[in-house]
């Protein structure tokens, strides 16, 4: 018997792929949406109304850099009018104090500000930003603190900035947001292209988890500390997106509705567009959402595994990217026949480290692939 189709809780609205940053771990696809194809203000308002009617509670306005949309305040008003809780996921780069006031007045509930590290040069090195970006972000943080809205700092952490982790925590305490996220890089999009420079060693990882656990305990009641364990080192896969087509619906700048950020990498999946069908119909009926929803599609060892209702077989995109088949168990799972593929990637990350240590030389590194901008 087919289980009832769940209600999505969150709508991820990728308003644009334009961005002043060029982060080496950006989750956007390598091939980005063009500016002239972006949805209009009215399109987004309609999508929000449809989402609200479906029971969606929250929307994350993201990109690219959502501030690149001149109509952002109007988009926020539209989302609030549809009954949604509105988060802005931003680099803060194009933000000025007066514009922030406009966005708050339009109904912004929560702002998440990204930092690439705790040092001045981090935004330049990992984000391809212009010099001065870090100082500007600190100014943005001070403006946000003047308003009664939710405030999260976000640090994407990886092999080359983990040595700054304690400084990031100190910086967080100084700024004083309600919440902070330390997100180990997940290997999709641009991060997949730069994986060999981003994947931490086991030693780095263990140390980072210890530091984060201490910070979480020490700051309890002041700042909510959240972090994600990189799944290449995990025993079981993450329940990606809370399960395919279960909790989240993502709409791209041109209106394609996707089950997750990375789903475009899976060959043969056809995505429908909110300009042609309602969000509700796409969620319930489209091939892209139905294909890996529930359990019917699963193969062994997931099919008979006790955990298949816990992690839903892990991530379909990772199965495709690492094992070459989107239908098999996520290869990070220790029970997956593809685990050896992840093991060898992890071994390389650790082997290279010990070589470096013993011989006192750095391994030959590939150049960063910086995220580009759409036409």
């Amino acid at each position: 018997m087919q289980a009832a189709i769940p209600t999505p809780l969150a709508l991820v609205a990728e308003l644009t792929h334009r961005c002043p940053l060029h982060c080496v771990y950006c989750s956007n696809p390598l091939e980005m949406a063009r500016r002239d194809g972006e949805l209009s203000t009215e399109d987004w308002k309609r999508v929000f109304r449809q989402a609200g009617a479906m029971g969606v509670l929250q929307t994350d306005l993201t990109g690219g850099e959502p501030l690149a949309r001149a109509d952002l305040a109007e988009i926020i008003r539209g989302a609030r009018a549809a009954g949604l809780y509105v988060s802005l996921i931003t680099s803060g780069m194009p933000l000025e104090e007066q514009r922030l006031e406009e966005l708050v007045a339009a109904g912004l509930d929560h702002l998440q500000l990204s930092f690439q590290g705790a040092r001045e040069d981090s935004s330049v090195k990992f984000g391809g930003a212009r010099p001065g970006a870090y100082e500007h972000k600190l100014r943005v943080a001070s403006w946000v603190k003047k308003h009664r809205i939710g405030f999260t700092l976000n640090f994407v952490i990886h092999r080359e900035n983990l040595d700054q982790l304690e400084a990031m925590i100190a910086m967080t305490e100084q700024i004083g947001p309600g919440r902070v996220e330390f997100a180990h890089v997940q290997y999709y999009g641009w991060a997949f292209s730069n994986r060999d420079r981003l994947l931490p060693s086991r030693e780095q990882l263990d140390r980072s988890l210890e530091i984060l656990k201490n910070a979480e305990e020490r700051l309890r009641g002041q700042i909510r500390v959240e972090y994600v364990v990189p799944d290449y080192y995990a025993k079981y896969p993450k329940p990606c997106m809370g399960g395919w087509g279960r909790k989240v619906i993502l709409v791209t700048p041109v209106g394609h509705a996707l089950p997750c950020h990375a789903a475009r990498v899976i060959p043969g999946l056809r995505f429908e567009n909110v300009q042609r069908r309602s969000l509700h119909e796409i969620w319930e009926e489209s091939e892209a959402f139905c294909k890996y929803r529930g359990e019917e599609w699963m193969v062994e060892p997931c099919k008979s595994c006790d955990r298949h209702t816990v992690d839903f077989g892990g991530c379909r995109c990772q199965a495709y990217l690492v094992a070459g088949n989107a239908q098999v168990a996520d290869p990070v799972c220790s029970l997956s026949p593809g685990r050896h593929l992840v093991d060898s990637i992890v071994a390389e990350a650790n082997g290279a480290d010990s070589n470096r240590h013993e011989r006192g030389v750095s391994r030959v590194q590939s150049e960063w692939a910086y995220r580009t901008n759409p036409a």
Partner: protein
Amino acid sequence: MTPELHAKPRLAPGCRLSEQNQQRVLLMPERALRLNGPSLSIVERCDGAHTVQEIVADLQRLYSKAEPQKVEKDILGYLALLHDERALDFE
């Protein structure tokens, strides 16, 4: 932490009560809590105007069949939990 009885709890910045299909929900950054019964009665009073003591007294009246000490203990525990989740400030 244990909330002090004279403190006035107020929803933290970025947290608000909302309603979706006749279900009250507490919306907050990257999460939402469905509220019913006593949890809803408590959160509705976290407006920066009521003291913890007043909230306890209100709920002891509302749930007069429950043992008053247990009601107080449950409320203090729930307020502490919301505070640690950064959904609540004490003013």
